[in-house]
């Protein structure tokens, strides 16, 4: 009995709910059709606007300082080597130097760690004036081929690096063809620093964008050699340098991950880097830079966000005070319709 009563009452309750829901809905529809929906009309009143600017200004400045702090906490070693690594006598014609494969491209540089660097330390190479976003370049790839390999033959988009000697190129396209091929080895004193070059590409790319069964084929086999060659025995999904390189950059100045040093570097440690200066940036006066950098919650070293926040915060406070001044000095009657004149002429 009890149960029954309970259940019936709940069903009535549900019924009531549906009825009131329907009523509410029809009321809503009526208000809608009569353009009479309850509305709030925010008006830009001086107190509201002034306090808004003030509050946001006050909030923004600390955020900016926080960002600046994070950015400053990143330790960064930047070394541009493209000019330095050309032997002195050849500097007048760097292009000839880089194109002459008989000249050894080795180059060594020592630098001192200024500040303690906590692992992981990211190794980037930075290219300047390099247009990975050029339309001819960005379009010259085939995502399908990267995933399916030779099974996919609609690679006309890869032109002019699609077919070589009558065989399709895997991976095709200008991007893959121009793969960066400078290499770096690091020494602390005389010990080689272990550089982890695994997991530098995105996991998702390795898993879903680059085929595990796809091996390089007919690559860099043409008359014109672009950048690095690929080991035809390693599937594309494991060619992490390629995967990183094929994530094209949107800006002409960009950094790409080369590897990670997974031990701390102490201040005053002397690091020497042994690099192979293979990649041609001389023909278009681009630059190559090696970067060692730690990381913060905000990413690498970039003062822009912090500075922008501080600047906007201060300007908001400035605007707020100007409006406050205007409001106090010029307390004109607000919303006064008595002097409303309708003389349009």
């Amino acid at each position, binding site marked *: 009995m009890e149960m029954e009563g309970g259940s019936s009452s709940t069903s009535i309750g549900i019924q009531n709910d549906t009825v009131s829901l329907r009523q509410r809905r029809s009321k809503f529809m009526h208000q*809608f*059709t*009569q*353009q009479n*929906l*309850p*509305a*709030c*009309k*925010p*008006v*830009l009143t001086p107190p509201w*606007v002034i306090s808004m*600017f003030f509050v*946001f200004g006050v909030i923004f400045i600390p955020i900016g300082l926080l960002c600046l702090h994070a950015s400053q906490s990143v330790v960064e070693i930047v070394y541009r080597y493209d000019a330095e690594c050309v032997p002195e006598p050849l500097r007048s014609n760097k292009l000839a130097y880089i194109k002459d494969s008989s000249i050894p491209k080795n180059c060594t540089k020592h630098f001192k760690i200024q500040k303690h660097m906590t692992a992981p330390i*990211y190794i*980037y190479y930075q290219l300047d004036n390099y247009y*990975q*976003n*050029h*339309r*001819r*370049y960005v379009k010259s790839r085939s995502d399908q081929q990267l995933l399916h390999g030779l099974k996919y033959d609609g690679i006309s*988009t890869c032109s*002019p690096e699609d077919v070589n000697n009558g065989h399709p190129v895997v991976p095709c396209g*200008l991007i893959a*063809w*121009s793969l960066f091929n400078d290499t770096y080895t690091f020494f602390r004193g005389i010990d080689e620093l272990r550089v982890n070059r695994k997991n530098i590409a995105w996991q*998702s790319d390795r898993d*879903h*964008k680059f085929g595990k069964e796809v091996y390089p084929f007919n690559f860099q086999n043409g008359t*014109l050699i672009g950048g690095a060659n690929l080991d035809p025995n390693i599937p594309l999904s494991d060619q992490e340098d390629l995967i990183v390189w094929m994530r094209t950059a*949107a*800006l*002409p*100045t*960009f*950094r*790409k991950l080369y590897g990670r040093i997974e031990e701390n570097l102490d201040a005053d440690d002397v690091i020497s880097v042994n690099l192979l200066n293979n990649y*041609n940036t001389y023909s278009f*006066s681009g630059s190559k830079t090696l970067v060692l950098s730690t990381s913060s919650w*905000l*990413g*690498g070293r*970039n003062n*822009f*966000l912090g500075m*922008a*926040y501080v600047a*906007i915060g201060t300007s908001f406070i400035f605007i707020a005070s100007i*409006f406050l001044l205007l409001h106090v000095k*010029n307390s*004109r009657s*607000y*919303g006064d*319709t*008595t002097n*409303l004149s*309708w003389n*349009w002429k």
Partner: protein
Amino acid sequence: MKRFVYINEDNLAHDLYCDNRISNRKYTIWNFLPKNLWEQFSRFMNQYFLLIACLQLWSLITPVNPASTWGPLIFIFAVSATKEAWDDYNRYLSDKKANEKEVWIVKQGTKKLIQAQDIRVGNLVWLRENDEVPCDLVLLGAADPQGICYVETAALDGETDLKTRLIPPACVGIDFELLHKIKGVIECPSPDKDIRRFDANMRLFPPFLDNDVCPLTIKNTLLQSCYLRNTEWACGVAVYTGNETKLGMSRGIPEPKLTAVDAMIDKLTGAIFVFQIVVVIVLGIAGNVWKDTEARKLWYVRYPKEGPWYELLVIPLRFELLCSIMIPISIKVSLDLVKSLYAKFIDWDDQMVDLETGIRSHAANTAISEDLGQVEYILTDKTGTLTENKMIFKRCFVSGTFYGNENGDALTDAELLSAVSSGSTDVIRFLKVMAICNTVIPVQSKNGSISYKAQSQDEEALVRAAARLHMVFVNKNGNFVDIKFNASTIQYEVLDILEFTSDRKRMSIVVKDSQSGKIILLSKGADEAILPHAYTGQQVRTYAEAVEQYAQLGLRTLCLAWRELEDEEYQEWAVMFKEANSSLVDREWRVAEVCQRLEHDFEIIGVAAIEDRLQDGVPETIETLRKAGLNFWMLTGDKQNTAIQIALSCNFVSPEPKGQLLMINGKTEDEVCRNLERVLLTMRITSSEPKDVAFVIDGWALEIALKHYRKAFTELAILSRTAICCRVTPSQKAQLVELLKSCDYRTLAIGDGGNDVRMIQQADIGVGISGREGLQAARAADYSIGKFRFLKRLILVHGRYSYNRTAFLSQYSFYKSLLICFIQIFFSFISGVSGTSLFNSVSLMAYNVFYTSVPVLVSVLDKDLSERTVMQHPQILFYCQAGRLLNPSTFAGWFGRSLFHAIVVFVITIHSYAFEKSEMEEVSMVALSGCIWLQAFVVALETNSFTILQHLAIWGNLVGFYVINWIVSALPSSGMYTIMFRLCRQPSYWITMILIVAGGMGPVLALKYFRYTYRSSKINILQQAERLGGPILSLGNIEPQSRSLEKDLSPLSISLPKNRNPVYEPLLSDSPNSTRRSFGPGVPFDFFQSQSRLSSSYSRNCKDN
């Protein structure tokens, strides 16, 4: 060109002239697709989009997937084609209904029932009472032995009174049976659209009379769409059929209307297009230069040494495609969508429902709501539009007693009723005049009730009132009229009818009492036509005062008089009258002169007051709309005095001394010219003063003015805020609309009858009142409303909101397209001017279709000011009228804003996502989400009132953006796989978003606040006042006070429009071709005389106050 119509000749002329099939269709099944596509592609915008879509098929230059343009393009075309097809199908259905109506015709001597579409020229058509005339006919026979039949021509010219049509003299007396066999030939002009002229000849073949040529006029015709009334049957021969009838010829295909906003949007689109071309050329050249100087050094790009011949074009075309989104393809779809919603709001509006009839307002044309907010001139019909078109006898003054003053209705006045029942002689005589002195025809129906058919609504009102007061006009049999008073029947013989003309301003009737044999002259007419002719000794002052009093109440007055005639006097006069009536030269003038000889020494019996009530709220509506800056022109087929009277009573013209009426009359060019110049001069002088000057012109003068003095008249039209045009034909109404349109004014025409149809179709906006004159106007109109007063709401609320909303929506559409386009342009500077798209195809398509169009669509709910405030301050409409919210300068503001926002988004994105974060897909999504955030806040900032739907749309859209992108990011095959998840995990992404919003919106908010507070527009001030919530003081609040004062002053007047106009009104309809002989040529009717009376009455009224 002439056509010869052989009557009843079946095998002749069949192929010469078209059949009677009416067709209003635009397409056939076969030509629909090509014709419709051709029409759509004749629009510049569509050509542009098609070109872009075609260019996108070339993969070398396309930055994105071609589907992103083809999809929307096909969708848009399908939508408009479907709409056209549906409209045409409906036209086909209504044509079919008219074409398949069955009519009786004579074939081979026998009557046959055929479909209306099969009528051929030369066929004999038989009509019965209340039949609609299926084609243009020449009358040959009618039930009436004298060959008279009555037609209602409302559908043709909008005049509701019955018109008489005559059988041509040659056919009078032909027997019913013989009519079947009638043969003859009619020589008539080729079809034209003049409904006032039909100059033809007829010759009947033997054995029917002789071979004499019988002239035909319009009086001998029955025109298509008229109705046969009060005539048992009529028969005629078809002379014009199908689309060649007078009606068919004058039925133009209404041009699709383009609103001012649309025109402005087209103009802005053109400007953007030019801008785009400039950008494309500049970037194209820059791109080619950069390619030759820089890109050739980029070995990894591998530019070939020798390109194909079109190489120089490739980069400019790429930029053309990149920039093609500058012109938003979605704008047409979203505009169509919101426009149909505006129309729905009008349909739904509960405050625009006519409670009496339950008729809702309806927007038939869904595309022009914004124009309602930009109207400058309203051209209105009078009868049925401003007035209710119901004449009602309200009061009377008989032998020193006012009846009906207490309760405003004499018919229920106990005093009058008791006077009737007690048989007071004066009252009885008064009622007799009311009942007899007219040309009304009583029609007795089977159940004994009597209805009256009258040419004049006033006469009908009098007869009805008399019947209510037990003086029932029962029967008219030839010359004998029967009147039933209480139980007794009195019979009179009508000896003569002294017809009404507008010059005589009175009509009289001479009757003989069948019992006593007494001959009596009964007269009724305007006071100035009756009172001066009272017999010497009668005190007319009281009557004059009564007339004055009634006129002040806005009633139309009639003085009723009578005189017993001596037998000899009458006989003597009757001879003269007959003579005058048969004279061939100057007949009208002679008749008038003879009449005058009889109409003297009247015994004034009383004054009857008739009300043609203004519709509820007409004066208030006009006053409000005039305050809103709208100019009113009244175009009426009615008489000048009536027009002026109505104009005064409904606030058309401001009261003295502010208002002034200037008359333009004249029958000759010279007169009109002189008048016109005089009026123009006055106008020029007074235009600087805050004076309200209106001109009054009649149809004749108008025709001359339009023909010969068009320039002067146009100047006058521009100078004058108010005009009253009387006695104008439907085509003149349309010409006036055309004239105002040619001066670049936005016109709204409102009317209720068939005579307004052309004006309604001609005007930028046509509003029809679904009234007593049928639904023609409402059907032809863009908007149909139940009552004139809804016009106020239609314009001030719906029109204004629609304009505001469209202004925002269209500019915003350009803003968002420009925003993304500018970013693409900026990006090209850092991508070697090679035409790379920063955004991927999915984002670009979804940006226009989903991300940015949803929030802005709910701006159809935005209200900048509440309806109440707008009604109280109708002047605010000026912002819409003058197009202050959508013009090149406001557009420049939006342009600047999108440029600024593009800079903010771009600079912040490329700086915060620099170096190791500069991955293409990520940067692209950061920039895109920056745009989405900004546009959400822009919509929020520009929204004046937030309903729940707006919140849902704006913020829900923002959430929707992330949901969509998360979904796309979850698809491994998509280019942006995992991108959005990656970004959302980065604190720097969110910090960047907040920075973009703050950097983009801070200055915009500051600027808006500054202008809102320190350079506030009137809208802003009212918004602030609304916010303060206090009573909004303005003229609007003073108004009701003055009105209530007036009520105190005259407690007798209930629900009567305020009016103190003593322009006495001849109440009977006069013939349109009557000449104003009595005034003499060259002397224009001087209104200033009555003006002085007007002012005196005003001043007295003021004293009373």
